[in-house]
């Protein structure tokens, strides 16, 4: 287990380093931030001064070396625009995005598993077919369009829910969260649902396929031969088995959810990391872009690792073979 842990850690460090280099170099090639930051009628001298202050006059390899050196000390640069550490700005916005992604994850599981299991138990019924058709829509409708339609319906037409923003927050352990206030929850519903829809469609498919397969297994037949009730068979025997692939896939998709949040946050003017990224791209605020992308890489790496641990916890067969190796 320890060997496995160290090996994983090494792999993770390598991924982060390679991604860092790619991100930094590619961002360097996009536009000139000085053009955006400087006063439109600034002369060449003023422009050079700004470039010098931001360290943009040095050659690429020196800038990169400085970036790596600082990054190793936990400093991902200062925002050109806000003149604050980029990492701090991102971390300030992170709780909102994580909250949104978690809410979406929960929604997708709550929608996806019951519907998927229903469709798996009665695949040829009207319900089963209807659910599958719905999941195709969930896959194919674009995220931003769903978001806009939901805003139109629930915020503009029915006026049940707010159209954007994060609403009222309370601070828990120094972190502002919105899911503990009614207003915050009301603001969370539409963006969480929008972000969840694609994943819900995925969960439906996984749950349906898993249920259909499990129902044909000998262990289900034996469970029936024991005289167990259908609810016990479905909620314990089948559900526990299908949770293994679903948890794995959802865990891996969680990183994607954070990345996808960019679109949803923009549509709902939701003040998360994604919105900060889009704003910063518009302003060519390189340190924030780099810090955001590095952040996402780290999140992905951490998630992959956690998923492996959860997978081992859910599937007893994995646990044992790992101890053996």
């Amino acid at each position, binding site marked *: 287990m320890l060997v496995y842990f160290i090996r994983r850690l090494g792999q993770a460090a390598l991924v982060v380093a390679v991604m860092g280099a790619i991100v930094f170099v590619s961002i360097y090639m996009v536009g000139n931030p000085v053009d955006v930051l400087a006063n439109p009628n600034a002369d060449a001298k003023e422009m050079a001064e700004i470039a010098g202050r931001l360290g943009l006059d040095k050659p690429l390899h020196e800038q990169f070396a400085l970036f790596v050196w600082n990054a190793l000390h936990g400093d991902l640069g200062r925002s050109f625009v806000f003149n604050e550490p980029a990492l701090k700005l991102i971390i300030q916005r992170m709780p909102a995005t994580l909250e949104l992604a978690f809410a979406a994850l929960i929604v997708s599981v709550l929608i996806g598993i019951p519907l998927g299991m229903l469709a798996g138990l009665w695949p040829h019924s009207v319900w089963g077919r209807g659910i599958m058709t719905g999941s195709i829509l969930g896959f194919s409708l674009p995220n931003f369009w769903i978001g806009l339609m939901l805003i139109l319906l629930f915020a503009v037409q029915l006026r049940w829910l707010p159209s954007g923003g994060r609403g009222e927050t309370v601070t828990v352990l120094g972190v502002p969260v919105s899911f503990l206030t009614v207003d915050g929850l009301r603001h969370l519903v539409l963006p969480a649902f929008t972000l969840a829809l694609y994943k819900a469609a995925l969960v439906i498919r996984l749950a349906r396929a898993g249920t259909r397969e499990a129902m044909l*297994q*000998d*262990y289900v*037949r*034996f*469970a*029936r*031969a*024991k*005289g*167990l*009730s259908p609810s*016990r068979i479905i909620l*314990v*025997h089948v559900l*526990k*088995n299908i949770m*293994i692939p679903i948890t794995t896939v959802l865990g891996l998709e969680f990183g994607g959810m954070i990345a996808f949040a960019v679109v949803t946050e923009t549509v709902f003017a939701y003040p998360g990391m994604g919105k900060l990224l889009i704003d910063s791209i518009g302003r060519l605020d390189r340190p924030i872009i780099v810090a955001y992308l590095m952040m996402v890489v780290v999140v992905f790496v951490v998630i992959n690792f956690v998923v492996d641990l959860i997978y081992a916890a*859910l*599937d*007893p*067969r994995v646990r*044992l073979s790992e101890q053996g190796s």
Partner: protein
Amino acid sequence: MSPVLEVRDLAVSFGTREGAVRAVDGVSLTVKRGEVLGLVGESGSGKSVTGLSIMGLIDAPGRITAGSIKFEGRELVGLPEKELRTLRGRRIAMIFQDPMTTLNPVLRVDTQMIEAIRAHEAVSEKAARDRAARALARVGIPSPEERLQSYPHQFSGGMRQRVAIAIALLHGPALLVADEPTTALDVTIQAQILAEVQQLCAETGTALVWVTHDLAVVAGLADRIAVMYAGRIVEDGPVDGVLDSPRHPYTAGLIGSVPSRNRRGSPLAQIPGMTPSLANLPPGCAFAPRCPRADAACRIEAPPLLAETGGRAFRCIHPLTAEGVAA
């Protein structure tokens, strides 16, 4: 003594793309209290479908289309699922072919045993656990309290089948249907498990239907033998009578393909040809294409079940005589 199980003219069909397939066609069986019946036939002859019908576990596209299954005097065909469920696992139990897949891989053995107890009896978790441990000990699993906390994959194949047997016998059922439970295991373990199950059933007076494609397996164990071919029982009778003087050519063929002490050294006789496809059975006797005694009369209509003295019956219009295989 009234029989535990009385199956009469059972027919089961499966709706397939090529039309309805009659997997079981007019099967009748009688099993007395504590009796061991060997249900023998090649793969695909309808043994599992017969066993599952008795359990009330035939699912779509399958359907019991005719016949009656009386268990302890009660008609099971058409019995509501809820009532069937109170019988399953308590009065009738079943174990299956592959011990690697019968237990749920993600649930611990104690969970799977305790739920089986509590499905039929309102006992405490603690009492159920004690009973589960005793049941494991009875089937020869060492340190049962610890083993209860294991997952199925931590047992060998033979041990897993023992766990399944322990679960099946938890409530001391009147009937155990064992669907080729040792086929996937190696030969020495097969023999051990066979003997143990027979012993356990004898202790509790549980009648046993032992399904197998291997005549030799049941020869030393069963009280009666029923031979299935293409969804029908073609011969049925006390084990000694059937083995010593089979009346149906198919039974004779099965006996001829078993290595036995009398014929040691001589090459095994194989039954020529293949099991017919149930979707397009030949008219008349289904065994005719492979039967050395077949003539034109055999191909006209399916032979009826002819009863004989000594509780024997067979479906053949040119049966072998009492002198045995040589005739």
